[in-house]
């Protein structure tokens, strides 16, 4: 189980996250919803170790996170930043070797799981956006990630690519991977999520661990007032 306890983050005087706490069970898909600027990306960056919080704790099975060791966290923010001049396979192989891996079969298997086996020898720069995001998911599989954080994974994708990514995400959760999906395209999340968290102005306003089947989009519109209507 992943526990986020009392995370607060400030940029200068602006509070981006204010005492954020929630839990996500292992192997679940959790939606993190909020409008632009609500603090979703900052929270994901903190959970992946890219940004340090001002206060608060991150726990994995009751123990504090030790970044670089356990849990293994993969975090995709915007578009993946692989080396454009290398093939999909070479990208993963190079990064796998950097992490100490030696077995090429791990890469082949990861690429097969995301449906990129046939495209593994094509240069990354020639990949479509959907393929790039799938390659990142292969990277998460290759790393045997415990927690996969995806920030706006459906942005810029056509319906077929969205469907493919959703299938892979569900498959990963069945393998015991915990996934946190941040998105403002809430409708796209409704059919795959197990839990949901709404965040607004850096605060959690909704936290449901059994959100399966809930009309999240409708609920979100009711709970989060549009700008200018808040008063």
């Amino acid at each position, binding site marked *: 189980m992943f526990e986020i306890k009392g995370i607060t983050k400030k940029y200068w005087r602006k509070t981006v996250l204010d005492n954020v706490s929630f839990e996500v069970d292992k192997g679940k898909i959790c939606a993190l919803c909020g409008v632009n600027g609500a603090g979703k990306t900052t929270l994901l960056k903190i959970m992946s170790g890219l940004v340090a919080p001002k206060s608060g704790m991150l726990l994995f099975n009751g123990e504090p996170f030790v970044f670089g060791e356990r849990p293994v966290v993969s*975090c995709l923010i915007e578009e993946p*930043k692989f*080396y454009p001049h290398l093939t999909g396979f*070479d990208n993963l192989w190079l990064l*796998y070797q*950097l992490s100490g891996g030696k077995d090429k079969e791990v890469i082949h298997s990861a690429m097969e799981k995301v449906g990129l086996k046939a495209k593994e020898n094509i240069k990354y720069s020639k990949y479509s956006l959907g393929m790039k995001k799938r390659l990142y998911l292969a990277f998460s599989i290759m*790393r045997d990630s415990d927690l996969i954080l995806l920030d706006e994974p459906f942005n810029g994708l056509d319906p077929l690519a969205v469907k493919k990514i959703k299938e892979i995400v569900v498959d990963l959760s069945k393998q015991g991977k915990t996934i946190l999906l941040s998105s403002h395209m809430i409708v796209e999340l409704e059919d795959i999520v197990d839990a949901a968290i709404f965040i607004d102005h850096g605060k959690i306003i909704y936290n449901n661990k059994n959100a399966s089947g809930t009309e999240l989009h409708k609920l979100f519109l009711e709970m989060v007032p549009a700008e200018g209507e808040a008063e």
Partner: protein
Amino acid sequence: MIIRVVRHELKLVWSRFWVLLLVVAFLVGALTLLSHIPDFYETIVAEARPDGVAKAELLSQYRAALEALDPSEKSKIALLNFFLKTNTDQFEYFELANITTHYLGAESLATSYSFIEGAALLTVPLGIVLGLLLFVIPSKNGSIQMELSSGIKRSSLLLGKIIVGFSALLLYCLISVSVSLIAAKDNLNQLFLFAYRDGYASATFGSLLCMKSLGMLTGGVFFFVASSLLGIVLPRSYLGPSIIFAVFFLCFLFSNVKAPKWGYYGEPSGLSFKTLFLIPFSNIFLASNFGFLDESAIVSAVYLLLTAGLVSGLFVYIKKANV
């Protein structure tokens, strides 16, 4: 973990084979051209000791001349004092100011020196390009975050990249000095005379080349780290390195205006101690030319301290700003 990072960086360099090839071709081409500079100058005939004049006789002539000189002729007095103190005469030295022109019978000196001069100047763009490739571009395009995502520690990643940069510069300097030493192998013990403050000093050609390569390395490392840090801090990838190069270029021009001819071919007596610090960038090469002088040790130490400060800055910035 650091070894894994070094291996990773080398593989990345290898994966951009054509860039590597282009850099090597550029370096070889530029150095070949620069080593031919002496061909454009006239040949100098080194002054030979007249037949039948013994060294002891010359030295006694110097002593007599020294007594007869007016105290206002400080330069001549200093020169004669130098010869008497070192028990040498004027025919044992070549002029440092003429080093890039042919000395009849020792042409290899000019080729060798021109080669290392060219190599020293190319250290600047090389250091800047290394900074761009290892730090600036990966941090701007986000690939550094992918490397961090693969579970490598931030400190190991930075250290590995710095080791690759330093090693590349060290290799470059070693190759340059080796080629220069081989080119001038028959004349490495030839003494060169140059004015130094109110006096004179001398050095063998071999030591001159070695000091030059040390200066190259110090300068190269400085430019590598400075362009890396500035490149990461400033919003555009090429802005920092361009500023560093422009500052170097201006300082280089300025230092050569202050000291007639080319600053480091000429006379260091023309440059005050203060000037060495005020025109920092280009004078690392000047300092290395005269590496056996007091100023050089201090200037080099200042550069190394400055470089160490920049490395620390790079570490802190990358850690705090989460590059």
